[in-house]
């Protein structure tokens, strides 16, 4: 016996005449045979469909027995019919309501999908709720913080000594050069305990979950397998990896990860057994040896507090064993939600997204939904006054207020229901793909559970229906038939509520527009901001042996397309080391770069005073130092050239001052910088300024030379202008998002304004007709209408502009790291654009009002 879903049975009970139990039996029998033939889903669908075919029978039998007080199905059917008619009768208003709701539902849905996605990270790990990361509260510079890495020895103790721990996985990230025949790639390597693959459910395409038990085995993800072996079967192939202390080992590919779910907070690339790390990289393992993260899998019924207290019994041992790290206490963080805590943890392993970000997006969605509700509220109240006679007749014929409220709510439920479907389509086809294009994650159109989807849809449907429909329904149902028929019912002349709501909307619109345009203005400013040197046509290579600098320089001289080269220890933007500098009683930290003569010229930094390093090899620049403006300012020097500072073990004379240059993604972050040029070569970077047109030749010449010098190192040019591409990507994404959101608010409030105005015109048609007949001009009629609405626009403008300006300022500094001095340009453009949109919206209605033919409007009745 396969019973159909409960909801379908319930539905059948509604529709099936009570005296026909046999019909129910037929349904159940049919369902069972269909379910065994087609599967339950299809059978349920047909069942659902079939139930509705019974409706005529229900009516047929229902009319026979008038014992029930009312026929609710008939009444609802009548209401639906009426709602559809009303909708079709005012296509413009209906369109505005449905369009408004559709856009709003689309936005809200997108926001909720994003929030839902973030709230259910790592759901593909079936053990998620029993996996915990061991983090520690540590004290550093008298500040308490949460520290992600944990002592590697802690893992050993946990796995062997506790009965409630089912598994321990220590993870350690490292770097290595992967070599395949002639190609070398620099990769991030994850060393993991053998239990890694069984505790976590990363999907495997090939291989078993026990492969990490073998020290010689390596697991690759799909992308890397394709990168290394193309279409060949990667399993059992061998790769050699040179670890960072120079030891090279061969590993056999024994398993391949499958495509990973979107919502993982960390994804492994190359996984080796942690024994490799312990045996090769870690010096004698003691309490100061750290794992990037330690995860424990607790048994189903384990008491968290007891594990916690056992964990903390190692605190003393740890603090004695590792005096550099003062652990106050250990704590277990559940994997469920771990990604969202990343911003609170120092060196987190699981990176999700900030919870606050998703709340902001979801609340913007809700805000837009509220705006759409305002619109509908206004429209419904004004359009309801056109249906007074209908209401009066209903009341006279015995309809009570409750029924009329119910009727109006019903109409609203139908509109919102339609908008829900359209909004889902909008979200699926347009908004979500658009959002994914700009967001750093790829959110699928999928809810974490069907219950959540149901809950969301039902609550949007009911809440929005009630929120936007309750007031109009109450308001309209209030009228007394006797007053309406006498013609004494006053149309709402001064609907303050409508106008306040509209004013509020306009204010939000101006706020959003001004805010997003200021943001855009700042984004443009930041995009075009100079870096203090020429970042175009410049790349750097990492070199391992300082001697390689000479060899590469020699080759460069004969390579066309290479304009100049330089060597350096550290490189502006890519590797900023710092050291402290002394001058008299002053001491502070400065960024430091040891460069070859010609480095500053190659970068094209701006020299403000003095000179660069002498290129002549005979010149002695051992005691020279070039500093930047910030350095001079920190020192408080009037004249910098010739000053002597104590830096890196030597007294050095300042020979030149350069302008500040950008060295991190943050523009506002200007640090002191010092450049030295030692005789002894310690360079780890080879910097090349090239000619864009000959980049290919430059790369191939250097690559050949590079592999001859260092066959185990990857040739990996880092283009200077791409250093902060993530920052610029984020900037554009945020810009697009704010612009889109503000366009939505403009659209919604224009819709609201249009709807309200169209109806007010309808109500005032006769008045305008009389005015025109008595000699008023079209212009004066337009003025009359404009006057009614202009104060709302002006009020919205006056309140919205300062609000938008102040609100956005914080976000600008947060996201762009620097803000442009305030200028009126974006504010003016935003205001003009919004006013233009509003004017265009109302223009047609205004002309309609001016062109009224009094003969027609006054003739009726």
């Amino acid at each position, binding site marked *: 016996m396969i019973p159909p879903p409960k909801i379908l049975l319930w539905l059948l009970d509604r529709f099936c005449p009570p005296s026909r*139990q046999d*019909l129910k039996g*037929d349904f159940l*029998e*049919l369902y*069972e045979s269909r379910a065994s033939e087609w599967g339950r889903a299809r059978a349920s669908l047909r069942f659902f469909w079939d139930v509705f075919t*019974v409706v005529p029978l229900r009516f*047929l039998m229902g009319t026979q027995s008038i014992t029930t007080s009312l026929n609710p199905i008939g009444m609802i059917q009548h209401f639906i019919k009426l709602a559809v008619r009303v909708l079709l009768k005012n296509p413009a208003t209906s369109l505005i309501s449905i369009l408004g709701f559709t856009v709003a539902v689309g936005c809200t849905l997108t926001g909720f999908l994003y929030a839902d996605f973030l709230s259910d990270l790592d759901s593909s790990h079936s053990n998620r709720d029993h996996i915990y990361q061991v983090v520690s509260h540590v004290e550093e510079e008298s500040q308490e913080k949460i520290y992600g890495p944990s002592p590697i020895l802690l893992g050993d103790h946990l796995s062997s000594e506790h009965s409630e721990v089912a598994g321990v996985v220590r993870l350690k990230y490292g770097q290595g050069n992967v070599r395949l025949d002639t190609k070398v790639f620099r990769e991030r390597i994850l060393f993991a305990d053998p239990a890694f693959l069984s505790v976590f459910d990363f999907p495997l395409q090939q291989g078993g979950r026990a492969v990490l038990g073998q020290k010689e085995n390596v697991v690759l993800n799909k992308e890397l397998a394709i990168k290394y072996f193309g279409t060949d079967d990667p399993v059992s192939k061998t790769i050699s990896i040179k670890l960072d202390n120079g030891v090279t080992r061969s590993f056999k590919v024994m398993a391949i990860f499958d495509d990973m779910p979107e919502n993982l907070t960390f994804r492994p690339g190359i996984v080796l057994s942690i024994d490799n790390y312990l045996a090769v990289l870690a010096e004698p393992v003691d309490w100061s040896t750290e794992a990037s993260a330690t995860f424990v899998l607790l048994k189903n019924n384990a008491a968290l507090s007891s594990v916690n207290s056992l964990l903390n019994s190692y605190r003393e041992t740890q603090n004695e064993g590792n005096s550099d790290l003062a652990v106050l206490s250990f704590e277990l963080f559940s994997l469920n939600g771990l990604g969202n805590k990343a911003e609170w943890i120092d060196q987190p392993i699981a990176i999700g997204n900030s919870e606050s970000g998703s709340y902001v997006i979801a609340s913007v969605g809700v805000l837009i939904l509220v705006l759409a509700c305002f619109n509908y509220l206004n429209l419904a109240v004004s359009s309801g006054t056109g249906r007074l006679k209908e209401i009066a007749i209903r009341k006279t014929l015995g309809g009570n207020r409750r029924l009329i409220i119910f009727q109006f709510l019903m109409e609203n439920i139908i509109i919102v229901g339609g908008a829900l479907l359209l909004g889902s389509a909008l979200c699926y086809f347009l908004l979500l793909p658009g959002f994914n294009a700009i967001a750093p994650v790829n959110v699928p159109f999928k809810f974490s559970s069907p219950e959540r989807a149901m809950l969301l849809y039902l609550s949007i449907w009911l809440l929005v229906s009630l929120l936007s429909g309750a007031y109009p329904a109450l308001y309209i149902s209030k009228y007394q038939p006797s007053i309406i028929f006498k013609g004494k019912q006053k149309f709402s002349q001064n609907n303050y509520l409508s106008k306040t709501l509209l004013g509020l909307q306009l204010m939000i619109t101006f706020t959003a527009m001004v805010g997003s345009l200021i943001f855009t203005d700042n984004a443009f400013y930041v995009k075009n901001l100079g870096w203090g040197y020429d970042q175009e046509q410049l790349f750097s290579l990492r070199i391992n042996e300082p001697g390689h600098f000479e060899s590469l320089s020699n080759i460069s001289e004969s390579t066309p397309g290479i304009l100049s080269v330089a060597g350096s220890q550290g490189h502006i933007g890519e590797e900023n080391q710092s050291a402290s500098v002394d001058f008299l009683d002053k001491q502070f930290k400065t960024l430091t770069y040891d460069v070859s003569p010609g480095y500053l010229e190659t970068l094209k930094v701006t020299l403000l005073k003095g000179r660069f390093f002498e290129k002549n090899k005979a010149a002695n620049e051992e005691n020279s130092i070039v500093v930047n403006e910030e350095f001079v300012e920190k020192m408080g020097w009037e004249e910098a050239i010739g000053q002597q500072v104590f830096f890196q073990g030597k007294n050095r004379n300042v020979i030149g001052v350069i302008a500040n240059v950008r060295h991190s993604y943050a523009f506002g972050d200007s640090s002191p910088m010092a450049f030295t040029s030692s005789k002894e070569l310690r360079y780890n970077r080879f910097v090349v300024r090239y000619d864009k047109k000959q980049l290919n030749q430059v790369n191939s010449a250097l690559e050949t030379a590079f592999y001859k010098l260092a066959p185990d190192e990857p040739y990996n040019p880092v283009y200077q202008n791409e250093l902060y591409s993530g920052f610029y990507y984020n900037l554009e994404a945020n810009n697009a998002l704010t612009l889109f959101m503000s366009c939505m608010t403009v659209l919604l409030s224009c819709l609201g304004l249009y709807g309200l105005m169209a109806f007010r015109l309808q109500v005032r048609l006769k008045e305008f007709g009389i005015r025109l007949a008595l000699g008023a001009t079209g212009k004066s009629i337009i003025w009359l209408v404009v006057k009614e609405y202009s104060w709302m626009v002006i009020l919205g403008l006056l309140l919205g502009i300062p609000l938008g300006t102040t609100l956005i300022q914080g976000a600008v500094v947060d996201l762009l790291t620097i803000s442009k001095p305030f200028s009126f340009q974006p504010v003016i453009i935003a205001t003009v654009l919004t006013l233009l949109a509003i004017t265009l919206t109302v223009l047609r209605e205004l002309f309609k009002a001016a062109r009224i033919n009094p003969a027609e409007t006054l003739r009726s009745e």
Partner: protein
Amino acid sequence: MTTRNNLGEFEEIVMLTIGVLGEEAYGLAIKLEIEKRLERSVSMGALHTGLYRLEEKGYLESRLGEATKVRGGKPKRFFRVTASGQRVLKEAMEDRQKLWKDIPAGVFSLFPKS
């Protein structure tokens, strides 16, 4: 014109199928039989509405079967064509036969008269 009870095409099919099924004529069986023999789909609602109407007209009579554990404990309703029902069916058949007989030779070229 004398008052005659006109049968709809669907009603006629339902009644004939009940005849075909004999003792086993209950809702779902009728539906499946029609679908099998005539290769047309019959909706549950339409069939039961038809059965209800025919019973009202007095052409069908029904009795409830025993409630069993299958079908969610719901009984089957078995139909039988009443005497007046049989009469109407016969009339309908005869009407048609008469019409067929009176078609002049050569009009239906596909079915020439023997």
